[in-house]
């Protein structure tokens, strides 16, 4: 449904995204995950034809973003990071206006507005002026706007920002309900959100795609990594020398110095190497004071991917 190939976009000298490539299947919910300023918004703006890429190409619903932008805009609904609301209008007036510019037939406008108002559960505030609504309601009005005219493709830029926990659950449920009929791209920097709503995830960091996989595969792949923290008596060089023969160590870090003699060492490995570590330390005449293991949390996997590219 959406095919992105080698998108690159410069803002003046600064490169916002580079060579972004991914694919979204029909009826699927894709999560676009990345820290702030990673290029999520830029990617979405290009896909919604808000602005063109510097190079690369993309097809949305089979239409080219350069040549058939009008067709794309007819079949997509878009919720930007800051919901584009006319703050002095009422919710009803606003949604009616959006229906008109989206080309909804005159006699269908009323029912269309009713439908999205119900979907976003904003029935109680229909006659209120948007500027007077709380952040959460504004966000929902923005979401309602993006669903007008039943678009095949829905692109949501951080849809749950500024909502309270109850509202977040509701919005996530709403997004999940879009699955099947709509193709959804959703961006977020919150991992659990992506994990709960999306089937597949594309992780972007510093403008580059660092991983594209199903949520399950991604977590499994990294959950296998074990992190072992050791407290060793000895100096850095001798510790390095002692641990060198263990080939399964993927990464070795010296944490902050405790005191002159005792060092904290963090080791990562896919295999269980606790015994080997202990043996190596003791055999080299160093004192092993502590050894503990931990598994990666989801947040850490995310950090892992976005800060250490070589792991991905």
């Amino acid at each position, binding site marked *: 449904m959406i095919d992105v190939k080698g998108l690159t976009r410069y*803002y003046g000298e600064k490169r916002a995204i580079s060579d972004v490539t991914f694919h979204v299947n029909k009826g699927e919910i894709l999560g676009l995950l990345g820290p702030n300023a990673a290029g999520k918004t830029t990617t979405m*703006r290009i896909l*919604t*034809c*808000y*602005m*063109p890429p510097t190079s690369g190409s993309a097809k949305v619903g089979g239409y080219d973003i350069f040549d058939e932008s*009008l067709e794309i*805009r*007819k079949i*997509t609904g*878009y919720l*930007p990071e*800051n919901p*584009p*609301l*006319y*703050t*002095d*209008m009422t919710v009803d*007036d606003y949604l009616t*206006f*959006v229906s*008109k*510019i*989206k*080309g909804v037939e*005159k006699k269908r406008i009323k029912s269309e507005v009713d439908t999205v108002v119900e979907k976003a559960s904003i029935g109680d505030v229909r006659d209120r002026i948007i500027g007077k609504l709380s952040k959460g309601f504004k966000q929902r009005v923005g979401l309602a*706007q993006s669903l007008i005219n039943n678009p095949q493709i829905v692109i949501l830029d951080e849809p749950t920002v500024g909502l309270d926990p109850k509202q977040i659950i509701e919005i996530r449920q709403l997004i999940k309900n879009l699955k099947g009929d709509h193709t959804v791209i959703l961006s977020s920097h919150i991992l659990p959100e992506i994990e709960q709503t999306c089937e597949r995830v594309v992780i972007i960091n510093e403008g580059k795609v660092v991983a594209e996989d199903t949520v399950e595969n991604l977590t499994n792949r990294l959950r296998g990594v074990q992190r072992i923290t050791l407290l060793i008596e000895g100096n850095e060089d001798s510790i390095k020398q002692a641990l060198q023969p263990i080939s399964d160590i993927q990464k070795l870090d010296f944490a902050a110095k405790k005191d002159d003699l005792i060092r904290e060492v963090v080791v990562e490995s896919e295999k269980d190497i606790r015994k080997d570590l202990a043996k190596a330390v003791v055999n080299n005449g160093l004192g092993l004071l502590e050894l503990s293991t931990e598994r990666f949390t989801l947040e850490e996997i995310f950090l892992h991917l976005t800060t250490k590219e070589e792991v991905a």
Partner: protein
Amino acid sequence: MRATLAIFQKEFKSFFYSPIAYVILALFTALTGVFFYLYLSSFVEASFMDTIRAQQYGMAPQKFNVNLMLIRPYFWNIALISLFTLPTITMRLYSEEKRLGTVELLYTTPITPTQIVLGKFLAGVAFYVVLLIPTMFFQSLLFIYGDPEFLPVLSGYIGLFFLGSAFISVGLFISTTTENQIIAAIGGFGLSLLLWVVGWGANFASSTIKSVLGYISIINHFEDFAQGVVDTSHIAYYLLFCFIGLYFSLKMVESVKWRA
């Protein structure tokens, strides 16, 4: 067409959402009202004095022409007040969209920049027509108590309509260049004023430049309308003027999209 209409309706309604529209309406009506009163009383005084003088010297009283002495200068006056008022109408036309971030909505829905610009321009013109209604009421008093010619009044309003549209196209263009309404207002007023006074310098220039500057000047083309002459060459000037203003606005709207 429907999208243009949607933009037009939204824009026109939104004038009245904020207090600005009411303040402008009130001030415009008050100012044009005061000037109408001043012109009317000086006209009445002049004709009254003439009647007395005629009686004293046993002569027939002069016939005073309302169109010439009252209505014509009054149209000039409305034109001048419009120069100051219209930038406050046009300032928010586009810069508001930029400030609110709603350009992101407009650009990602199937509506073209031409429809956006045209809808906004027409909304501005429609509001200007609303502004002129009270002055029509003032002038209708002349028809109730006096006997002015009607057609020069009509041509005066046609002139004001075109002049106002030209100012609005200038203001809309300035509004597309900034998200700051104050800058949009000052810029719109400055450019309008420049186009108004550019003809004044013409007298000191050589004949070619003189005719060019005189032609560019936005107010020179208004003169004939105020005098009761509807000349198609002046209408053509104003249409061309609006077209250029809208064309530049359109290019700005498009270029903002490409620059993002």
